[in-house]
């Protein structure tokens, strides 16, 4: 369809869709009354039953643990797919890595950036580990901590050149890390199936509320997810970095 016709057709369709959606929204319970059977019960149960004070993490990793297992494998499959699509093609040549912006001279990274970058790497990694470890006590968890850890790794690229990043973090080792994290989640589930009553059964010692080693297997799941997400995001971003900086289609090929 031509763009003019399409916009008209879309306008009519969007009117119908908006009417359909808004007519349902006005019948939703009063905003602020958010009372639901599941929500209220889980809010009161997760602390006594599982010694988890962050109820959202309790739901994510214990009550509805298999949803989060699926979610982690969605992330795993997306990283594998991006790796497949952005892998170096036979007609691409690895060019000497230079942050070339066509047409103007690019200054090397200044010392201030280099020092601050390196100085930030330590605290960022520590902060990421904190968020992963305290997932079941305070807001945060495997996914959020994993992304912070991945950004910690990328500070190395900001502070230096792409080669340093490539040297420090060999791709195969990171792939193994991501797979161990993903397989770890399923393995913890199988432990629950074999020794407990059902898949993902939290059979670990619950410990005392508020302590780091409380809530049975949930901290282990947090660590597995943190490892997988940190490694996955590093793979994701290095795939994009490699495409943006290093790979060029050999001229005269097309």
């Amino acid at each position: 369809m031509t763009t003019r016709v399409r916009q008209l057709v879309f306008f009519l369709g969007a009117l119908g869709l908006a009417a359909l959606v808004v007519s349902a929204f006005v019948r939703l319970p009063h905003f602020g009354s958010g009372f639901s059977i599941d929500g209220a019960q889980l809010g009161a149960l997760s602390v006594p039953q599982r010694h988890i004070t962050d109820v959202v993490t309790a739901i994510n990793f214990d009550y509805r643990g298999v949803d989060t297992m699926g979610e982690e494998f969605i992330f795993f499959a997306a990283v594998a797919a991006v790796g497949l699509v952005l892998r170096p093609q036979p007609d691409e040549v690895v060019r000497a890595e230079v942050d070339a912006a066509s047409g103007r001279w690019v200054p090397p990274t200044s010392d201030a950036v280099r020092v601050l970058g390196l100085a930030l790497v330590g605290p960022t990694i520590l902060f990421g580990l904190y968020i992963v470890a305290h997932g079941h006590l305070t807001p945060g968890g495997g996914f959020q901590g994993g992304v912070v850890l991945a950004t910690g790794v990328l500070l190395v690229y900001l502070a230096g050149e792409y080669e340093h990043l490539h040297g420090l973090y060999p791709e195969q080792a990171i792939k193994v890390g991501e797979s161990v994290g993903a397989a770890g989640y399923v393995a913890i589930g199988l432990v629950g199936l074999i020794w407990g009553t059902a898949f993902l059964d939290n059979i670990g010692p619950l410990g005392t509320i508020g302590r780091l080693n409380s809530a049975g297997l949930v901290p282990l799941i947090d660590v597995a997810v943190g490892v997988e997400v940190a490694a996955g995001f590093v793979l994701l971003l290095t795939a994009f970095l490699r495409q943006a900086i290093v790979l060029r289609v050999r001229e005269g090929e097309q």
Partner: protein
Amino acid sequence: MSSLAPLPVAIPLIAAAVLMGLGHWVPVRLARLFAVVVSLSVLVLCAVLVVGSRHSLVLHWFGGWRPEAGVALGVSFAIDQFGAAGATLAALIVLAAVVTWLGSDELDAVGLALVMTTLAAAVGFCLTGDIFNLFVFFELMSVSVFGLVAIDASHVGAIRGALQMAVSNSVGAFFVLMGIALLYARTGALNLAQMGNALTSRRSDQLVVTALVLIAVGFLVKAAVVPFHFWLADAAGTAPAPVAMLLVGMVDSLGLYAVARIYWTVFSGISAPHIHALRLVLLVVAGGTALLGAALAWEEARPRRRLAYVSISHTGLMLLGVALLDPNGLAGFGVYAVADGATKAALFAAAHGADHPKHPRPRAAALVLGVGALALAGLPPFATALGKGLIEHGASTSTRPVLLAVLWFSSTLTAAAVIGMALEWWNHPMEAAQSQSRGWGWAAVSGALLAVVAAWGVVPGVARAAVRAADGLTNRAAYAAAVLATPAAGTRPRQTPTPGLGVEPLLLGLAAVLVATGLAVERRRRVSHGHEPSAVMTQPWTILKSRSIGDAVTWLTVGTALLGAGVTLAFR
């Protein structure tokens, strides 16, 4: 049996992680063997679940969180025969795709890991009893298949097909999630049985209608029903043939299964008074898809895209079974989905064989297409005839003639399109394939698939088992009582009589094959004499064959608005 339930999902997920982790060090041949073994074991496990769920639901509450007083906190697998059969179909098609793919070299360990996550997602999708868990497996299957469609990154058509598919399916997934949010706000639950109980005890209003429409549209986009079909023509037309086997053999029938599962477990109680009008709306969508798909298939020239339009048309035929909202129709859908899925997968395996880079064998592929066309036309002994017969018996006396006409006309036109391709390939100039022994993987697979479809048509008792499974799925109260372990108040199991299928399917099948062959031969004669089809014929189709993402999303919006209007009127 209950502790067996999570294994067909857990095993492929661990296999995916192992393949991804060790892929660098393990030779590709070993990785492929490992994938075949895992697919086979999942197939066996699903078959065991089919047998295990004959008499009662196989229930598995994850984390040990059993429901109390009708409130389910945890997530459950609630496996009935219908779901287990769907999982078995998925495992069969994935196994066939992996074996077909053994010949070519584009499939490395990472690609196999994506195939494993697709398998795990498809099995979990069929077995789960929780609506958000269904959405998570839906998304996992989508992301894995997006990656597989674009596995050959140098083929720009495949990348564009993957992009088109990713945008359409993602917007469909957002609609499903909005529907789930509305249902959660109304019922406060995410377990299918508990939501059904909560909804049935109240009056229906616009919120229920919008939730039903949004969730149905999301899964109809996944099933590639007209007007949400644009992505399948691109993706199946350009992806490697084994990936197209997954798309047409498994992905679209699972979309329809999800519509049936959610309707019967959640919405059937509240929409019982409006069932006749609702049936009409769904039949219009199904009939439209079957007829338009068949016309597009007849008109399309390129082989892969023609097979994709054949698949869209047959998805419409399957949706006819679901749209009847009746145990017989649903049993017909079950039998037809397995038989038709296997047939279409065999056709794409043949397409893989015809233009195989190293060992092209157009003649052998033409034979497979010929046999496949017989199955598409619904000729007994193929199980597709059994499926159509059951669907036909599901229709009430008033709608039966129209339904019969749509069923017959679509199968004939699609069979004619496939026979036309077979004739083309048969007269293809024979280049000598390099070596006689290599490259017969696809032939073994398509032969085996067609044999399964034929054998399944003659095994006695398939119809009775299918109708009993459909009775189980359509009996909402019994399902809810079994899942939530609440006393079953007066839920006597219904015994829909199995329709006796006389000689009628044989006559219809023969007529379809004869007419289809006539059409194909006639067209081939006119084309070889230089008669180009008149321009006026091809003009309207260009709108329905658009490859632009903007058009697809526009039709998605318009389709949702129209379906919303239809269902709103039905509930008036």
